[in-house]
């Protein structure tokens, strides 16, 4: 009995260990999906105990895994772990989710591969209508002649390099563009094998402005092998005439025997991988200068297919209100580098230029640049905003072309806001019966202003100022200098008259002394004869004349103070002698 019970217990234990066997399953919620769908991959591990490692996902280049959930349940100490991965498809085409591996207690468990078909957005029901057909339907090693030149150039290079599993090609739409002419650079990274962790380094450029344009993906069959490629496009514009260079673009990718997904690396794990890189060839360009004869309305645009239009809003305003006058140019090329439009002046308007704005519409297919100015009319009336010209250089014809907008009509009405800051309202009636109803400017003047008055006209007679000032100066000069000179000149004549009329010796002596005093400031009354003679000599009288004067003066003194000796001397004689002496003195001192 005990033996039977022991055998039963052993059986149960063995059976338990058998039932606790680890199982690993994986399934996807869908196997046909579009690029817009997401796929949920469920990995279930049953029959494990204790700590376990995470299942290891295969390399999934066709998907981005962005979410992971873990669910755990235990029954009789047996644990079931459910891992759910949410993934987004990246490429169109057939792809395989490889075996998922799980390591537990030295054993490795693997799931079956899952095949998934990814279609382009909105066309899952048409497996044949996928984007990769553009090239993988071309079995020949020459590009489709119907391809555009840029795509054809890329495809040609790809055919030449298709012996390698990874390579890059680059091509431009024009190798000798004009300054400011927009060209396209396309760079493709081709791969026929899985890879991971592949950072991209854009090319460096010189003498070129570069701007990202778009990115896309596709496939191309080369020598019977399906290659996938990722394409990046750029818009290029030559900055200045001369050589320009587009450097190499590089992708550094990792390949390995056991590549890890990002999630695997996040949770640990190791793999054997190898870092490699692929680069495109540098492309030299020659930028051509724009020809001369640029019109004044040329602002730097180079290209074709531009349209230009202008509008004014609002078209009916009051005087003093703002009108927005805008001009917009549309075109396929980048318009940002073009210069600001100069609006024409409009008579009667104040002009306030505003900043321009540029952008694109229709999914970046059409660029635009809008120029704006604010006009403020100062007076009422009907005005016409003139046509605006905008020129561009057409590289196809190598000529400048000018676009012209239509003139815009603006109606400006008188301002109704005249009361700002002033009360035009009617005042209350006054007791006198007078009431101010409104206040307005006084009426026009219907004649010209009268001629300026006499005072205004006198303001022009500046010469009289000078004349009268001169007269005043003359008077002052005369009063200070001329008057004395005149007195001196009159002295001799006065002395002569006095001598003629002299009735006595004293009269003669007085006339002579007065002459000397007025003429030479010699005071004969207080000076001896010797000093008088010396003073006369100083005044320029000759010695002989001085001698004559001394003799005359002695005779006068004798006649006045010694009458006995002077009896013979008559006043007449002395007067004549004095006149002769004074005449000599006058002559000698005149010069």
């Amino acid at each position, binding site marked *: 009995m005990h033996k039977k019970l022991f055998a039963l217990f052993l059986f149960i234990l063995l059976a338990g260990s058998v039932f606790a066997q680890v199982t690993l399953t994986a399934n996807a919620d869908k196997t046909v999906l579009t690029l817009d769908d997401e796929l949920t991959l469920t990995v279930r591990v049953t029959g494990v105990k204790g700590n376990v490692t995470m299942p290891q996902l295969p390399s999934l280049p066709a998907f981005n895994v962005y979410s992971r959930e873990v669910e755990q349940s235990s029954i009789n100490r047996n644990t079931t772990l459910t891992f759910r991965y949410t993934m987004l498809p990246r490429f169109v085409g057939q792809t395989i989710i490889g075996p998922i591996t799980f390591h537990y207690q030295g054993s490795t468990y693997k799931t079956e591969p899952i095949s998934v078909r990814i279609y382009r957005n909105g066309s899952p029901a048409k497996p044949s209508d996928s984007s990769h057909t553009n090239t993988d339907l071309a079995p020949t090693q020459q590009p489709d002649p119907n391809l555009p030149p840029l795509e054809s150039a890329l495809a040609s290079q790809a055919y030449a390099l298709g012996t390698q599993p990874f390579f890059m090609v680059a091509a431009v739409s024009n190798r000798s563009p004009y300054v400011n002419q927009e060209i396209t650079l396309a760079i493709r990274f081709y791969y026929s094998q899985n890879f991971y962790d592949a950072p991209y380094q854009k090319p460096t450029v010189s003498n070129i402005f570069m701007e990202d344009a778009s990115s896309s993906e596709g496939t191309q069959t080369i020598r019977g092998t399906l290659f996938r490629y990722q394409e990046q496009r750029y818009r290029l514009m030559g900055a200045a005439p001369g050589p320009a260079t587009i450097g190499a673009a590089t992708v550094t990718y990792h390949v390995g025997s056991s590549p890890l997904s990002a999630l695997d690396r996040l949770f640990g794990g190791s793999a054997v991988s190898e870092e490699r890189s692929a680069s495109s060839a540098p492309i030299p360009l020659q930028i051509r200068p724009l020809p001369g004869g640029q019109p004044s309305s040329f602002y730097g645009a180079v290209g074709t297919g531009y349209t230009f239009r202008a509008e004014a809003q609002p078209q009916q305003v009051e005087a*003093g209100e703002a009108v927005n006058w805008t001009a917009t140019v549309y075109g396929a090329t980048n318009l940002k580098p073009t210069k600001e439009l100069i609006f024409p002046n409009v008579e009667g308007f104040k002009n306030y230029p505003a900043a321009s704005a540029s952008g694109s519409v229709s999914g970046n297919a059409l660029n635009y640049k809008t120029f704006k100015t604010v006009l403020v009319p100062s007076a*009422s009336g009907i005005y016409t905003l003139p046509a605006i010209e905008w020129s561009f250089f057409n590289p196809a014809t190598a000529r400048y072309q000018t676009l012209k907008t239509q003139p815009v009509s603006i109606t400006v009405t008188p301002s109704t806001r005249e009361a700002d800051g002033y009360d035009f309202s009617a005042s209350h009636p006054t007791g006198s019966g007078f009431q101010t109803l409104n206040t307005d400017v006084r009426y026009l003047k*219907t004649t010209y202003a009268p001629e300026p008055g*006499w005072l205004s006209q006198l*303001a022009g007679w500046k010469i009289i100022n000078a004349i009268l000032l001169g007269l005043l100066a003359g008077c002052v000069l005369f009063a200070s200098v001329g008057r004395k000179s005149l007195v001196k000149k009159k002295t001799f004549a006065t002395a002569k008259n006095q001598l003629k009329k002299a009735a006595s010796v004293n009269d003669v002596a007085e006339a002579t002394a007065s002459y000397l005093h007025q003429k030479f400031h010699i005071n004969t009354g207080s000076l001896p004869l010797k000093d008088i003679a010396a003073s006369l000599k100083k005044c320029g009288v000759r010695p002989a004349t001085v001698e004559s004067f001394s003799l005359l003066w002695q005779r006068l003194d004798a006649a006045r103070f010694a009458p006995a000796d002077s009896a013979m001397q008559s006043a007449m004689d002395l007067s004549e002698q004095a006149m002769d002496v004074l005449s000599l003195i006058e002559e000698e001192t005149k010069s």
Partner: protein
Amino acid sequence: MKRIFLMGILLLSLIRVSSAQPALSQGESLYRQGKFSQALSLYEQELKNHPNDPFLYYNIGNCYFKMGSKGLAVANYYRAFKRAPRDLDIRHNLSLTRAACGERLVPSGVPESIHRLYFALSVTELTGLLFVLFWICCLLGCFWVLKRKGFPVLITLLGLWICVAGWWYTRIQWENQTLAVIASPVAEIRSGPGTNFPASASITQGHLLTIQDSKDTWYEVIVKSQGLKGWVEKNAVEKI
């Protein structure tokens, strides 16, 4: 011969009157019909022939006022006022327009009669008066120098001449300052000559400014009524 000469002068003056008056009549006719912009064009055209006529400036100011452009109206009334300060219509319209812009013609605290007296003569008339007084002073000075008579009269006249010279000097200073008026509906006073400088104030049209300096497209101005100093765009103001 004399008669022919006089007839010629009379005919010439008649031709002048007949060619000038229709322009003013036509302007008045348009003004009465409310066609202010057309009347304005006519008066501005006429101003080329009579560049100093205060009445033409007055009429232009009226047209601008009627069209709602008070700033330009103030500018033209000021031009008229400078040339004919005694004209009551010009004074009234200038005073009214400045009041409509929130400013006064007569500074606060100054009696109206003093202001009228101060502007009783134009600068040219004042210059003429100054000259006449100077001439009389010179003649009296000569008389006094030669005859030593009339000194009290000379001193009195010299004192009067100095007063008139002071009056004339202040008026010349007033005339020589570069005045301007805000012509756009609103202008911004900035702290520097460029839109990169912040705006310290906005000012409506019709306000009087004194221009201090100029740089590129900017004026440095003083707004005396507000005690402001800053920079304003040239195209926002009208120089008087």
